[in-house]
């Protein structure tokens, strides 16, 4: 699991001291440095930089140089430099996204890495759905997610770096390749992918910036509601309804199954807020298609997570156990297909 040694922390602190000093144009002291997320290959570190008496709350996003990514991660996730430019474009367009500050250089030796401002709030669904401090926020989240998403999709493509274009047909082909690579026959996922293939929406003439992982767990919330949208590494160009469908996948409701919009509201509430904020009109059949797709997608991601352990690329009980969650999406897929579409 964790390779979080004191040596690694010391190295990161020293490099951050040099890099933040360069960026702010004065000697910076690094304080309260701590590793946030568990992944070995995609790290998030939180720290403060004190420059000329002013304290900056910051985040380091980092892919260490020596860590192997799986072929699938390389195929679907953008690199850190591209992520930095997507954040810059989205933030400049008024999206509630973290403000990216500067990139580290290869000479810094931390791998692909950049620094952004830290925003307050928590992402833990269990707390957001049940704890008293978020009582008032809970009623607002579905609408806010609709508004923010409309802004993401309105980002001017000319301000974006080169991003992969991914349409329905590309997604289906990718999931079938995944199933083939895993090697275990999966009748329910095959059924769902054929259903999806036969009904797939036509590509848009003008694809938009799709966040790609817009769901509960990937945004921060404080007492006032959603503060910022995180985890942009699956950003691509495509169908805006993809993000609306993914947000409504049952796995992100964390038990609040009667509130499809991330566990916080109805689909209609989400779509109304999206349309009112300037997003296009949402076709319910198209949204249903993307929700079915998202459900199959998450199920196959679960199988892939287990495969990372089984193939030896990451030794992790947690990854192994996620494989047994795939069946949850098989239950959901059979329910969704019964609803037609």
């Amino acid at each position: 699991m964790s390779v979080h040694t004191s040596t690694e922390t010391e190295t990161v602190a020293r490099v951050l001291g040099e890099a933040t000093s360069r960026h702010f144009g004065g000697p910076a002291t690094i304080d309260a440095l701590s590793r946030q997320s568990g992944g070995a290959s995609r790290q998030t570190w939180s720290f403060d930089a004190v420059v000329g008496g002013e304290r900056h709350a910051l985040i380091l996003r980092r892919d260490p140089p020596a860590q192997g990514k799986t072929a699938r991660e390389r195929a679907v996730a953008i690199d850190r430099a591209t992520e930095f430019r997507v954040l810059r474009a989205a933030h400049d367009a008024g999206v509630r996204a973290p403000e990216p500050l500067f990139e580290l250089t290869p000479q810094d030796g931390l791998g692909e890495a950049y620094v952004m401002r830290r925003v307050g709030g928590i992402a833990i669904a269990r707390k957001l759905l049940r704890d008293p401090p978020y009582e008032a926020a809970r009623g607002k989240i579905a609408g806010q997610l609709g508004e923010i998403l409309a802004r993401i999709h309105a980002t001017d493509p000319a301000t974006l770096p080169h991003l992969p274009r991914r349409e329905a047909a590309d997604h289906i082909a990718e999931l079938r390749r995944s199933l083939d690579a895993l090697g275990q026959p999966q009748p329910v996922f095959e059924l769902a992918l054929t259903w999806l293939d036969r009904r797939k929406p036509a590509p848009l003439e003008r694809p938009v910036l799709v966040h790609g992982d817009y769901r509960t767990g990937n945004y921060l919330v404080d007492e006032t509601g959603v503060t910022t949208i995180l985890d942009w590494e699956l950003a691509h160009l495509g169908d805006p309804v993809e993000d609306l469908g993914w947000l409504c996948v049952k796995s992100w409701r964390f038990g609040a199954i009667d509130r499809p919009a991330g566990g916080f509201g109805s689909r209609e509430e989400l779509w109304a807020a999206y349309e009112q904020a300037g997003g296009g009109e949402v076709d319910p059949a198209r949204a249903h298609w993307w929700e079915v797709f998202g459900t199959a997608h998450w199920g196959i991601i679960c199988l892939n997570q287990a495969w990372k352990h089984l193939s030896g690329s990451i030794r992790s009980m947690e990854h192994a156990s996620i494989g047994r969650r795939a069946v949850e999406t098989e239950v959901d897929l059979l329910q969704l297909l019964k609803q037609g579409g």
Partner: protein
Amino acid sequence: MAQDRPTAAELLTAIADFLREEATPALDRSEPRLGFQMRVAVNSLAILEREVRLGPAADAREQARLVGLLGRDAPLDELNRELAHQLRSGERDETDAALMAHLEATISDKIAIANPKWR
């Protein structure tokens, strides 16, 4: 040769109970990150306990249904491979009532092992 009791399911339950009731609270106090990992482990042991108890009969039912559906007998994995192939090619789809009854039953047995609370 039969092993003495506890059965595999009984032993798994005893281990899970110990880890949940005694080891996890101690870890939560000293190493919260490991406390989380321990919950994952306890949950996985509960899956194994249900699999040991319910898995063999579920596999036999799945096999019998597949033999009926595909009209031939073969190992479970081979039959599932054939079915998966038919579903990818579109030879069978959700309009096939016998197919859907089989998948519903199979997934119902699978979730009863992996996560009976899922709905």
